[in-house]
């Protein structure tokens, strides 16, 4: 019997692969937040104004806030199914550091819910008449910002995973936490529009991402242990 214990990297990949597989099999969970994002963005011109000047002013903010809402909605099933079927217990009892297992789950969540939104953002930016020179900045800021949202939101999801009726508690906890990301994300786009360089702002976001990657999974892991208790 080959009883060599797996390396943490193997376990990381296995968890990542498993979550991607589940997401692939339950397409609704992936498609719905994405559709939500597209629909919310399309509602803004109808609610505010079809004038292209006004739209281009609010485009970055609208896209960013819709991304926040969509990522929060898709967060909800990050740990719930695993909690309900007991897989989460198996994850907690694995000999590997929970940090990396949580990181794998967050990465897979971002790949299926964050990345598609980022990829489609230039199209929506075009529909909202965002000036062309800001496309790259918007794309980069979303590319850095959405994983931060996944990592931070994961803490709140882990804390509320055992609750029968969560309602909007997830939103109440997560949305205020997204303020720093939102600020730097939209500021970088505005900097580009004002013909300034967004590099510094994007670098700050990268630093935030680095902090989030190294600290948030720790908090999520602790939160999962509390919730499974």
């Amino acid at each position, binding site marked *: 019997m*080959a009883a060599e214990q797996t390396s943490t990297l193997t376990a990381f990949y296995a968890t990542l692969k*498993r979550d991607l597989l589940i997401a692939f099999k339950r397409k609704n969970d992936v498609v719905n937040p994405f559709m939500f994002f597209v629909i919310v963005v399309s509602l803004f011109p109808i609610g505010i104004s079809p004038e292209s000047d006004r739209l281009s002013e609010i485009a970055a903010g609208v896209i960013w806030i819709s991304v926040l809402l969509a990522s929060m909605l898709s967060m909800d099933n990050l740990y719930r199914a695993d909690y309900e079927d007991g897989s989460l217990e198996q994850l907690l009892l694995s000999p590997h550091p929970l940090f990396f297992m949580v990181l794998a789950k967050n990465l897979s969540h971002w790949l299926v819910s964050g990345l598609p939104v980022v990829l489609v953002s230039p199209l929506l930016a075009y529909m909202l008449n965002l000036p062309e020179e800001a496309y790259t900045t918007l794309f980069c800021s979303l590319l850095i910002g959405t994983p931060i949202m996944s990592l931070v939101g994961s803490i709140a999801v882990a804390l509320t995973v055992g609750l029968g009726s969560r309602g909007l508690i997830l939103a109440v906890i997560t949305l205020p936490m997204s303020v720093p990301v939102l600020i730097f994300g939209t500021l970088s786009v505005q900097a580009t529009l004002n013909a300034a360089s967004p590099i510094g702002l994007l670098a700050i976001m990268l630093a935030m991402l680095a902090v989030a990657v190294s600290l948030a999974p720790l908090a999520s892991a602790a939160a999962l242990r509390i919730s499974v208790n």
Partner: protein
Amino acid sequence: MPPVTPESPVDKVADKPMLRASNLFCERDERVLFSGLDLELSEGQILQLQGSNGSGKTTLMRILCGLNDSYEGQISWYGEAIEEQTASFFSSLLYIGHRVGVSKALTPLENLRWSCSLRQQTSEEEILKALAEVGLRGFEESPCYTLSAGQQQRVSLARLLINPARLWILDEPFTTLDKKGVDLLETLLQAHVKAGGAVMVTTHHKLDIPELSILSLG
């Protein structure tokens, strides 16, 4: 990490019991579940927890697994405090709870591939062999939501066959099993303790195993 199998018992001090809990105290919802509880589990022993509903069997098991930390008292693993060596403890522990840890979206094969990769390198053949042994031949590739509760339970039991964990903690493993499944699990338990493993189990089912000892709660 050296290979850990029941066949190659312990390099550690032999006179120390595998798992020992002393003076455990736990209360839930202002009700004392147990206090001053002592228990020992050694190699080659099956410990059956008995007690009425709500007497704290599941809670005790989860405390011993490290899933629940709202207790007072000491738990030691081969004579050393369990908090000091969670990695070594977790790699020799296999827990199957009420929720069996089988994702309904995945097939039995995919489920086992994942849960095994968390522990030790396992080949595809081993998994298929184990699935056949628990009577799931032909169901390897069907999604688990199409399987019955008993069959899902069998998927989790297949882990017992593959995994060489020394300590099994099983919470009501017999409930959803049919007659054949019960026989299969009993054989498994016996083989495991013969090979020097230890088992802690809750069940209302009467176990017919010579190494059995019983702890009553509540």
